[in-house]
């Protein structure tokens, strides 16, 4: 108990709170700019942490983490160009809502969902870190494969009304993930002999191209053909009232749980979480018909899930020393710099640091609201620019962000090509989320299939799969998720015909 009180005291020292606020603000600003995301934000702040006290350094980095994840939604809502990969889903309903003149309400939903999702994951983190960490260890190649299979079924629910096109887009995503060296033989695939592609392609250029750049082209086209583009008014955030939450609390909890769970699984990230949660909401929400027209449910699903990842990702990071995503990997390195040995012994040897991190993350989530207000106000200045100049600024930021994430100039070309390709696909009515779902899950999917086959060895498949009850359950859920929509379709058709 004394440790916890000390940790709370530590997290509330002026320097730590100040660094935390600064981190959230910097993260939010970087996240809000299209193309620049969490990894860029953390990389900028990392050098400053060397000279700091460990709790201040952790507060700064966790602040940037939470801030950048939710900051991306500002650009998504106001410009329809997601600020970060994890905010891509938020644009799907956030922007239509803003177009109806309700940008303040849309941002209000974003921030309310972000903060509640984040706090949900913090509570889970505090209550159940050791248990959940042990659960995360249950996931070997087979279980991961089953889990990704479950995730891929989302492609079908996010492309309602255009199943064939959605599946095609999903396959494109999976194929994009295959570019570069095979994880099993190191042989190069689909690189056309270009050295720049020999490392595969990164998530950031693909998302920036598909969502932000294609949007710029669409807008440029409408400016060209004199369809006057509505000037967006931003700058304010109106949080949703208690009454507006009625009927949506269950969705919030479910989405936060999905986000936390995805965060706990090593090797995934906030982008995966928001797409999976969005797909699930689109499948099961009572208001799913209205998705795409400015439905708050969709915003809640995306934003609570992506921010819940922050807490979830800390579970394996702090309990096992196994980072859940690239940002927590950097966080672990910071621990090492400050003489704390990250790993299984961290919780036993330096519990005060672990609890201090928990408390810091809670404070960071609370800071999302004031920093969001500041950022939205600053963003409003950007919106006052004439449309052609604004779009130019967005293009510059997109290219900068794509280059900055790995420092590879091929990523710039990937951004431009995927932007142009996505523009034509959008015109033909292809849904965009399946590409990203396929792409983010693709690499892990391929790896887990290969690992699974190697682990299986000479056993029979049946025996191998039955040896893991967890995998059996996940396979069953995946099967149900695939069959259920068709079954309910069939039933409703039958009902209509019998009514006649």
């Amino acid at each position, binding site marked *: 108990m004394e440790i916890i009180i000390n940790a709370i005291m530590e997290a509330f020292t002026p320097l730590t709170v100040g660094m935390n606020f600064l981190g959230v603000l910097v993260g939010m600003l970087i996240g809000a700019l299209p193309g620049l995301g969490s990894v860029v934000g953390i990389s900028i702040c990392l050098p400053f942490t060397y000279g700091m006290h460990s709790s201040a350094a952790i507060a700064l980095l966790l602040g940037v983490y939470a801030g950048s994840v939710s900051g991306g939604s500002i650009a998504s809502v106001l410009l329809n160009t997601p600020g970060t990969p994890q905010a891509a889903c938020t644009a799907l309903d956030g922007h239509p809502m803003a177009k109806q003149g309700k940008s303040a309400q849309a941002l209000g939903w974003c921030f309310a969902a972000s903060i509640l999702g984040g706090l949900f994951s913090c509570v889970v983190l505090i209550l159940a870190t050791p248990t959940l960490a042990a659960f995360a260890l249950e996931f070997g190649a087979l279980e991961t494969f089953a889990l990704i299979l479950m995730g891929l079924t989302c492609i079908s629910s996010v492309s309602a009304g255009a199943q064939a096109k959605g599946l095609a887009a999903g396959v494109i995503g999976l194929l994009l993930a295959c570019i570069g060296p095979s994880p099993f033989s190191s042989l190069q695939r689909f690189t056309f002999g270009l050295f720049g592609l020999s490392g595969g392609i990164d998530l950031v250029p693909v998302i920036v191209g598909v969502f932000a750049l294609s949007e710029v082209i669409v807008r440029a086209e409408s400016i060209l053909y004199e369809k006057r583009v509505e000037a967006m008014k931003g700058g304010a955030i109106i949080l949703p009232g208690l009454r507006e939450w009625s009927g949506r609390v269950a969705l919030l909890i479910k989405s936060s749980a999905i986000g936390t769970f995805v965060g706990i699984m090593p090797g995934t990230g906030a982008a995966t979480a928001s797409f999976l949660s969005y797909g699930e909401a689109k499948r099961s929400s009572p208001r799913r018909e209205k998705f795409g027209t400015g439905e708050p449910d969709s915003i809640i699903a995306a934003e609570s899930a992506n921010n819940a990842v922050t807490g979830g990702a800390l579970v394996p990071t702090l309990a096992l020393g196994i980072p859940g995503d690239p940002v927590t990997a950097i966080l672990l390195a910071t621990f090492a710099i400050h003489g704390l040995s990250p790993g299984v012994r961290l919780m036993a040897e330096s519990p005060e640091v672990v609890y201090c991190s928990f408390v810091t993350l809670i404070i960071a989530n609370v800071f999302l609201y004031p920093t969001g207000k500041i950022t939205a106000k600053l963003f409003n200045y950007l919106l006052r620019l004439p449309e052609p100049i604004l779009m130019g600024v967005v293009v510059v930021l997109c290219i900068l962000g794509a280059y900055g994430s790995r420092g590879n100039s091929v990523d710039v070309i990937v951004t431009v090509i995927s932007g142009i390709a996505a523009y034509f696909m959008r015109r033909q009515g292809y849904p965009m989320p399946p590409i990203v779902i396929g792409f983010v899950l693709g*690499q892990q999917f391929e790896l887990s299939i290969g690992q699974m086959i190697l682990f299986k060895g000479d056993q029979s498949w049946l025996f191998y799969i039955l040896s893991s009850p967890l995998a059996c359950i996940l396979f069953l859920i995946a099967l149900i998720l695939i069959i259920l929509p068709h079954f309910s379709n069939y039933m409703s058709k039958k009902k209509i015909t019998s009514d006649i």
Partner: protein
Amino acid sequence: MLKRMFSFLAIMFLWSAVAFAGYPEKTITLIVPFGAGGATDIPARVLANMMEKKLGQTIVVQNIVGAAGTQGIAQLFAAKPDGYTLGYTPTGVVCLQPHVQHVPFNRDSFDFIGLVTRQPVVLMSSKVAPWKNFEEMVEIVKKEPDKYVVAITGTANMTHIPVVELAKHFGLKLRYIPYRTTAEVMKDMITGRVHLYADSPVPLSQFDIFGLIQFAEKRAKNLDLPTTKELGFDRDISHWQGLIAPKNLPQEALDKLASVVKEVVESPEFNAELVKMSTNAEWMGPEQFKTFFEKEFDMYGEVLSNLAQKK
């Protein structure tokens, strides 16, 4: 006319000599071929930080990530050899990758400023595995060939080659399963899905696993494990990191950098920082580092061509 031209040349020559006496006179870029916060990045940043103070110029660390580090080193290779673009590389990128994949650089592409860190590769074991030491491991694996699992983080890289060599020497048959990162390997090693893994000794202090042997001639400090030499297998395989530059670096710049890096690497402050990262500082000057590199490059080339023939 000739006289005028001569004096012009003379002035140009003097001017350039004067200019170089002042090296460095602008910001230096240090290319790190792996991501921020990683096992290559942090020692590089600590080094850059301490070099800055001695050189009186800013050093900007640029992380260029991708294709097992070769993207970053390829950009270093393409840079002007003026002493303002340097690279911080670990063993694998410059000694193994040129034998494995098609890269623009090779054995003669770089100038060597100095070796910065070095530590032996360690063979690590899961605590769930049915052995307590190396001898037991050899015995058990021989009894049940193709049963036990070795994790690797890429084909023919620094986690793969040492185990292949070891297995060849002791006649072991193991299963090799690729992962993406050390952290993912650790997850499966704690649960016992993976039994063996070879890498730098860093994970030993962080995870619930134990070391079996080190690939070295003599025991490294702070690392009390039997060496391969003690077991009659004479293979010295180490993870090292060093500062390199594109070929034909001006002599003045090379001398200045080498003396500054030597001071930093031998300083107690730098050593203290590296110990926190479970790494050891080790200095080698330009000449010695170059000879060492060439020996390593050829050694891995031979090992990899043997491996390819076997397939």
